[in-house]
C-alpha cells in the first residue's frame, strides 16, 4: 500500500516538475543585496500593478547575488541583481567567462550610513577619525605606533565628547552594511593619522596589506557589539540603552525619527538633503545590474528598467524616496536615465 502510494507520488511530483521547468519565462527574476531589496521590491510591485507580471526579487546579499547573476545567460538564469556596492572587476570577469558580456549598470540612488542614538541619549558630534579611534582594534598612540585600543569612554578620545562608555551596536561581518561602514568611516578615519597614511604608502610600495588590516578590524572588547543583520533590532536596542550608539541605513533613521536621532559626521547631519548633495560623507551608491542579453527574451525587462529609472520612482518625490532611498541629484539622475534607457553596456576597464 505504502509502496504504491509513494511511487504514485514520486511520479506525480516529477511530472509536475519537468512540465514547469520547460516553459519559457514571462516573470522577471532579480537577486542580490538586502539593502536594495526594499526599493527594488517597491518598483516590482508598481510594475506589477501597471499590468506586468510582478517580478520575483530575492534577497541574497550583494556577493551572493553577483554569483547567481554571473552564472550565465538563459531563461533559467537571473535577469538583474541588486548591489549595495559597485560590481568588482573579478565579478565582471566571472560574468564574462560565463557568457554574460553585456551588463547594464544603473545607479539608482544613495544610501546614507548613519550613526544614531536614542532620543533622550547624549547628543554627540563625531568625525570619522574619532569613529576610527573609538572602534578600531589598534590605534596609533602619540608616537604613531600601533597599540591596542586604549579608549573606554568617548571623553578619552576628545574631552569635548560626553563622559560615556563607548558602546556601538552595528552589523556583523557578513553584512554589506558592515563593509560599507569600514570603507566609509574606518578607512577614511584611519587616513586622518599621519602614521597610518605612511603605512598606506608603504603598503602600495611593498604590496602588503598592513593598512587594510588596521581599518578592517574592529575591537573585540565589547565596545563594538554585533547586533545582527536586522537593523530594526539595533533600533530597538538603542531605545533600551540610551548611552549606546547604533550603525544602520538611513531609511531606518528616517522611519524611526520619533525614537532615534542621527549623529552629525564632521559637522554634517545625516539628513536627506545632505546625503543627496554629497555633503554627508557616510553615503554610498546603490546599483542594479541588468543583463542586456535578456532584454527582448524575458518579457517586460526593458519596461521594468524604464519604470525603475522613471522620475516617479527614483525622482526626489518618487515613491522610492518615500521608502527611504535618497535620490540622486537631478543631473546625475538624468544621466542615469538616459544611459539606462539606451542600455549602454558596462565596460570593465573602470572597475576595481
Amino acid at each position: 500500500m505504502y509502496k504504491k502510494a509513494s511511487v504514485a507520488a514520486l511520479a506525480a511530483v516529477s511530472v509536475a516538475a519537468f512540465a514547469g521547468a520547460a516553459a519559457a519565462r514571462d516573470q522577471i527574476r532579480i537577486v542580490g543585496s538586502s539593502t536594495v531589496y526594499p526599493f527594488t521590491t517597491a518598483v516590482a510591485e508598481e510594475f506589477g500593478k501597471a499590468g506586468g507580471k510582478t517580478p520575483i526579487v530575492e534577497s541574497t546579499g550583494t556577493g551572493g547575488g553577483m554569483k547567481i547573476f554571473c552564472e550565465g545567460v538563459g531563461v533559467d538564469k537571473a535577469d538583474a541583481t541588486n548591489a549595495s556596492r559597485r560590481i568588482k572587476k573579478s565579478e565582471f570577469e566571472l560574468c564574462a567567462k560565463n557568457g554574460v558580456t553585456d551588463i547594464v549598470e544603473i545607479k539608482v540612488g544613495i544610501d546614507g550610513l548613519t550613526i544614531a542614538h536614542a532620543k533622550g541619549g547624549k547628543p554627540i558630534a563625531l568625525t570619522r577619525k574619532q569613529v576610527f579611534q573609538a572602534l578600531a582594534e589598534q590605534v596609533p598612540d602619540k608616537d604613531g605606533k600601533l597599540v591596542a585600543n586604549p579608549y573606554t569612554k568617548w571623553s578619552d578620545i576628545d574631552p569635548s565628547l560626553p563622559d560615556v562608555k563607548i558602546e556601538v551596536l552595528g552589523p556583523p561581518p557578513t553584512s554589506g552594511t558592515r563593509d560599507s561602514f569600514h570603507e566609509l568611516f574606518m578607512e577614511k578615519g584611519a587616513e586622518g593619522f599621519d602614521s597610518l597614511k605612511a603605512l598606506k604608502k608603504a603598503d602600495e610600495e611593498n604590496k602588503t596589506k598592513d593598512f587594510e588590516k588596521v581599518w578592517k578590524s574592529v575591537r573585540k572588547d565589547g565596545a563594538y557589539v554585533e547586533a545582527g543583520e536586522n537593523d530594526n533590532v539595533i533600533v530597538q536596542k538603542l531605545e533600551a540603552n540610551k548611552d549606546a550608539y547604533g550603525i544602520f541605513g538611513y531609511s531606518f533613521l528616517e522611519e524611526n525619527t520619533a525614537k532615534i536621532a542621527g549623529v552629525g559626521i564632521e559637522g554634517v547631519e545625516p539628513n536627506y538633503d545632505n546625503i543627496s548633495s554629497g555633503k554627508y560623507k557616510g553615503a554610498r551608491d546603490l546599483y542594479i545590474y541588468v543583463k542586456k542579453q535578456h532584454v527582448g527574451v524575458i518579457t517586460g525587462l526593458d519596461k521594468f528598467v524604464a519604470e525603475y529609472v522613471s522620475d516617479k520612482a527614483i525622482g526626489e518625490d518618487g515613491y522610492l524616496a518615500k521608502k527611504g532611498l535618497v535620490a540622486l541629484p537631478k543631473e546625475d539622475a538624468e544621466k542615469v536615465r538616459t544611459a539606462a534607457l539606451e542600455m549602454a553596456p558596462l565596460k570593465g576597464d573602470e572597475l576595481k
Partner: protein
Amino acid sequence: MTDAAHSTLPTAALIASRRNSPANAALVKRRYAAERRFKAFGIGALILTGTFLLALLTNIVGKSIPAFFEHTANLEVKLDPAVLAPDGKVDPATLKSADYASLTRATLMSIVPGIEGRAARKSLSGVLSSGAADELRRRVVADPSLIGQTIKVPLLLSDDGDLYMKGQDAGASSVPGIGTVTPSDIKGSITLTSTDGAFKSLVDDLTKAGVPKDADTGAIVLNSNLPSRLVAINGGLVKLQSVTPDGATGNVLLSLKGNEAASGPAWQQTTYSVPEGRRKTNDQDVAIIEKVKETGAIQKGINWRFFTSGDSREPELAGIRGALVGSALTLLVTLVLCLPIGVLAAVYLEEFAPKNRLTDIIEVNINNLAAVPSIVFGLLGLAVFLNFMGLPRSAPLVGGLVLALLVLPTIIIAARAAIKAVPPSIREAAIGLGASRQQAVFHHVLPLAMPGIMTGTIIGMAHALGETAPLLMIGMIAFIVDIPGSLTQAATVLPVQIYLWSDLPEVAFQQRTAAAIVVLLAFLFAMNGAAIWLRSKFERRW
C-alpha cells in the same frame, strides 16, 4: 531498604521497632527532604519556562493585535467621467488604467480645504494608501454604470495614517480662544496680532513649563522638542513658531479663508501634546488626518486582507496568504516524500536488514545526517535539484525536496524507535499463525507502530515548517506577490516571510511581523494538535 524487609519477612513488631529507631527516623526525614527539594526544583523549572513562554507569547500576541485591524475612511467619491473615460469610451482597458488616485485626492481636498503648496499636497496624498484607489478601480471595473455617480467607498488609510489611528497620535486637543486675533495673510509665514492679549494664557503656560524667552525679542520660540501649538482661525490652521502675549508668528498648514479678525470662540487654540520631534507624522500630516478624523469618516475594521492577499511593500496591503499557501505546498511535497521513504527505510532496517557492518554504517550515518546544519541541505539542493536536474528556482517543489532531505533522518529514527517498541510477541504470534515476515510487519507491527511514527513525522514536519536557511540557496527568500497556484510557481514560506518583514524599515511592518509569527504558531499548534489527535485515536495498548 524495602528489599531487605521483603527477603527476611520480618514480623510487624520488628518493622515497627526499626522504623521508630532514631537513626531511621533521621534517614527517613532526609529522604523526604531530598524528595521535596527535587520536587521544588522541578516546579521551579516549570514555572521559569512557563513564565518565559508566557512573556514571549504575550509580547508577540500583544504586538500582533493591531495588525489584525485596519482603518478606512468611508468617503464619498465622485466618479468623474472626465477622469475615468476621457474620450467617452467605457471599455475595461480604459477603466483599468484610469487615474483613480486623482479621484480620491479630489475627495480628500473637498474634506480638507486649504491645501496649498507642495508639502501640504504631499501630506494629503500620504493619508490614503496607494491601494485605496485599487478598491475604487475594482468597483468601477465590476460595474461601469457607476460612472458619473457619487458612491461611498471605504478607502484604506496609509500605514502612517493607520498607525496614527492606532494610538501613535499627536494628542491633539483644542480650547476656544479668548480675545481677538488678526492674521496678516492667508498662507505662507504669517503673523497673528492681538490688541487684547489673546496669547497671554499661552505665554503663561509656556513660561510655567520652563520655556525660556528670547533675550532680544522677548518672544517665546517654539521648537520640535516642545508640544506643537497651533491656532485654528478663519477655517485654516496656523502652526505657531514664536509667541508674545500680543502676537505670534507661524506657518500656515491649512490656508485661511480670509485675513479678517476673529474673536472669542471663533478661533481656537490647538495643542499637539506629543512634540513633533517625537512622532513619525509631522504637524502638516497631523493637521490633515485630524481634519479627516473630525468628519467621522474613519472606521476601524478587521484586516481580512492580511489573510487573503500576498506580499506587498506597503504594510497596509501586505498579506500572509502567499506564504501560507507556499508553506502548505512545500510541506505537502515534504510529507509525500518523507513518510513513505522514511517508514519503508525504517521497516527495512529494523525488520529485514541483516545486522552487518554495512547496516551499522548506514545507521550511524542516518544519525549523523540528523545533526547536519540545515544550510548544507540547501547547498545540496542547489547543486542537485537546480543545477543538475534543472528544476525551477523558488519553487515549493524544490523547497519540499530539500526539506524532505532535512527531515528524513528524523523520521527514520522516530519510525525505527516506534517499530522497536512493538512487543516481539505480536510479530511472533503472527508468524506462528502462518503469516509471512512481510505480512507480520505490514498487517501487525506497522499499524501498532503507526502512532509513534505519526508523532515523529509531525515533529519532523514542524521542524521543516520553521526552516529558512536551506531555502536561501534555492531562492525562496524572495519578494513574491502572486499567491502560488502550483508546485512549480515561485513561492515563499511563513518563516521566510517573517524574516523578510522584520528587516523592512517601515514601523507598521513590525506589527505585521508579529502577526505572521502568530499565524506560524497557529499553524504549528494545529499540526501538533493533529499529532496528538492521531496518536490518541490509533494508540493501542498491550
